[in-house]
């Protein structure tokens, strides 16, 4: 890709970016949200039309006007939200749109099974071609997408944040598959916010910033600090260093919380001014536990005490009124009303506080929104702007503002930094710092170990719905945490199951 330019009304998203990928090379692409990574990929995949510049494949200049053309040139993309027909089998997805026919004109199921199995085996994947895609775990779905790309003889495969939803083990599996792609002389563009992954798998890495190319270098000739500095102009050292106040009184106490089959007998407490980390593999029940406390799901047994008083929370409304704020894992489907303005979203949980006799105090609504836009540094041209049009990091800040403005006591951050760039991450950490200073209790759920280890004062580890460990900051040890999270318990370890 040479000198690609693209502008949208009011913004030039790409200002002459060039990128080349060799066959059998893994090329990392990094940059903050809004740096232009997605735009560049969408142009390559035919989803957007470029304003200027050229794209060449194997030396020949090509024009890509539609996703179909991109595919016919051998370009494929694997996104974090997998694009497969969920209700069809793995094999059918392989042949989607061109099912092979037998002599009678019927679908040739035998051929589908055979070809699919062969391709999957080439990548050492043991997945049954007849399995319905929706029955597969997200990680396996991703592998199926990759295998499909291999089967379609793709020359270049783009991975856009492929590991966002994967556990460490699954990431390793993904990397093995990518290594196999390299051997097959397939070119790979690898986009990720997790820089460790870039260093683990990529040959070269390109940094974009504000739609411009900052530079391309071999990964062997650079390091994480240098990359982050290029991306944001800040060093990695200050990433997780937050001010920690002296923890105060106990604000939340959970005793024997149970909801079969998701989790059982979960007990823990949270103090004012501390971050309680929640760690566990995907599916361990972390989110379910917290949703129960908040009232989004029903619990079967157990009790919740807030500020020393026993409370019953059967609905999110009661949870909100009790002073709990939930920043859900998926902000687009659970946190934000995307088609509404920043002002409404910020006030969404507080309308009972700023209304009288059913009428909204419109000037307070606006002043509160303006206040949080400036104090949380939310980048938006106006408070009326639809949240849909903000970047991921700014959207996340709107969700935070919603709960800060409600003056909640306890904030549950469920994977707050998934899909946000380094700069926005730092701002979210600053927010956590600010909330701590105000004496709030914070529960932080994260699958990203360096993040929980860096931020949490204490760490609760969950495995298959049961608490397998509670560690103080001095006991943090990556191996130990992972062992607890995998249910491997050595004798002598401090375990309450």
């Amino acid at each position, binding site marked *: 890709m040479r000198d690609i330019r693209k502008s949208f*009304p009011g913004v030039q998203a790409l200002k002459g970016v060039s990128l080349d990928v060799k066959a059998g090379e893994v090329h990392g692409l990094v940059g903050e949200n809004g740096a232009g990574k997605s735009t560049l990929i969408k142009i390559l995949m035919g989803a957007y039309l470029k304003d200027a510049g050229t794209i060449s494949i194997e030396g020949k200049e090509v024009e890509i006007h539609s996703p179909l053309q991109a595919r016919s040139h051998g370009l494929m993309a694997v996104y974090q939200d997998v694009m497969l027909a969920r209700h069809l089998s793995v094999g059918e997805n392989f042949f989607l749109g061109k099912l092979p026919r037998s002599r009678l004109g019927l679908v040739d199921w035998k051929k589908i099974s055979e070809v699919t199995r062969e391709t999957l085996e080439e990548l050492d994947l043991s997945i049954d071609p007849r399995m319905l895609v929706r029955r597969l775990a997200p990680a396996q779905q991703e592998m199926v997408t990759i295998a499909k790309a291999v089967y379609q003889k793709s020359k270049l495969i783009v991975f856009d944040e492929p590991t966002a939803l994967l556990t460490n083990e699954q990431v390793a599996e993904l990397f093995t598959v990518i290594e196999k792609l390299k051997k097959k002389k397939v070119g790979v563009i690898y986009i990720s916010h997790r820089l460790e992954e870039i260093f683990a798998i990529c040959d070269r890495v390109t940094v974009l910033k504000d739609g411009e190319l900052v530079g391309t270098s071999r990964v062997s000739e650079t390091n994480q600090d240098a990359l982050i500095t290029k991306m944001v102009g800040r060093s990695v050292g200050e990433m997780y260093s937050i001010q920690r106040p002296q923890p105060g009184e106990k604000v939340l106490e959970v005793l024997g919380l149970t909801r079969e089959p998701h989790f059982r007998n979960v007990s823990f407490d949270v103090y004012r001014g501390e971050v309680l980390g929640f760690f566990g593999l995907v599916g361990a029940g972390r989110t379910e536990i917290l949703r129960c406390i908040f009232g989004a799901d029903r619990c079967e047994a157990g009790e919740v005490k807030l500020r020393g008083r026993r409370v019953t929370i059967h609905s999110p409304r009661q949870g909100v009124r009790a002073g709990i704020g939930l920043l859900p894992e998926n902000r687009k489907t659970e946190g934000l009303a995307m088609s509404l303005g920043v002002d409404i979203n910020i006030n969404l949980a507080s309308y009972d506080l700023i209304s009288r006799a059913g009428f909204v105090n419109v000037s307070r609504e606006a002043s509160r929104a303006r206040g949080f836009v400036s104090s949380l540094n939310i980048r938006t041209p106006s408070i009326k702007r639809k949240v849909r049009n903000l970047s991921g990091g700014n959207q996340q800040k709107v969700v935070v503002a919603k709960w800060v403005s409600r003056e909640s006591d306890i904030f549950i951050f469920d994977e707050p930094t998934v899909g946000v760039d380094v700069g926005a991450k730092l701002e979210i950490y600053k927010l956590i710092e600010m909330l701590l200073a105000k004496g709030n209790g914070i529960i932080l759920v994260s699958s990203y170990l360096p993040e929980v280890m860096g931020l949490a004062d204490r760490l609760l580890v969950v495995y298959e719905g049961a608490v397998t460990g509670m560690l103080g900051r001095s006991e943090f040890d990556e191996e130990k945490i992972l062992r607890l999270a995998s249910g491997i318990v050595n004798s002598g370890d401090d375990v309450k199951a």
Partner: protein
Amino acid sequence: MSVPNSKSNRGSGVTLLGTLKFLHAGFAEGILILILFVFFVVLAFAAPSFLTLNNLSNLVRQVSIIGVVAIGMTLVIISAGIDLSVGSMVGFSNVLVAILMTHGMPIIPAILITLAAGSALGIFNGVLIHDGRVPPFIATLGMMTAVRGLLMLISDARMIAGLPRPFLNFAQINILWMPSLFFVWLVVIVLSIVITTLTRFGRNVFAIGSNAEAARLSGINIRFTLYGVYAFAALASSVAGILYTSRLANGIPTAGEGYELDAIAAAVVGGASLMGGEGTILGTVLGALIIATLRNGGNLLGINPFILQIAVGMLIVAAVLVDQLTKRNR
């Protein structure tokens, strides 16, 4: 994607699409007002009888009743729902108020009972949709059929005549040269603009329509809001049904047939999104006026009514098409 920080519409030029985009970005109802204005200017020249007081008050009388229904529909559509039962609700309240009055009930109690009965049916819609988790389309499709059956049953499928004189006079009187029906519509418009823009209920309707799960997790009372939305739509339809009775002087069992589609058309032309979370009362009012003006003007010009029907159909699609084109890449 980064956020465009300036509001400039670079690259749009002076093209039609550019102009549309500009209007759309600045003031969503701008295009509609422009279209209505163009219609008026063209018709004023083409059909001499268009800009007469007689014709205009006739136009307003035609649009007022469906306009009231469309406003109820707009609220439902903003909540990401749909209400196919509004036409049957119009028919039901038309027949009910006529039966009550011909059985000797005074006008005011008859109207109040009819409004209450209509609202109750609306709340039942809400119960089916919220508590029964029946998709709005299906729940109200069922209600549309059932309520029509109910009104046929209570009316014996016959016209009901012999309504009190003062009740019938209401639709005939003019206030300041405008028909009384128009002022009823105006009151409904003002009330619902207040509801949608200034009340907590209105905020909740938008929030649920935009993202029901996020609204729930923000502590919004989904049950109350949905009951309210469908009750409001049914109440508006009952008001329309009573106006209809006064205007046509009879209880007519087929009253309101097809109104649900006209109401949806007005809301959609007015910019409401069937995906929920988007729509304005003013837009719907303009949408209803545009469709009515097209029909009225077409009649005056002697255009074949079938061709007119084609034009209305195209207008509905064009409204959404323009919306999509101007939204693209934003």
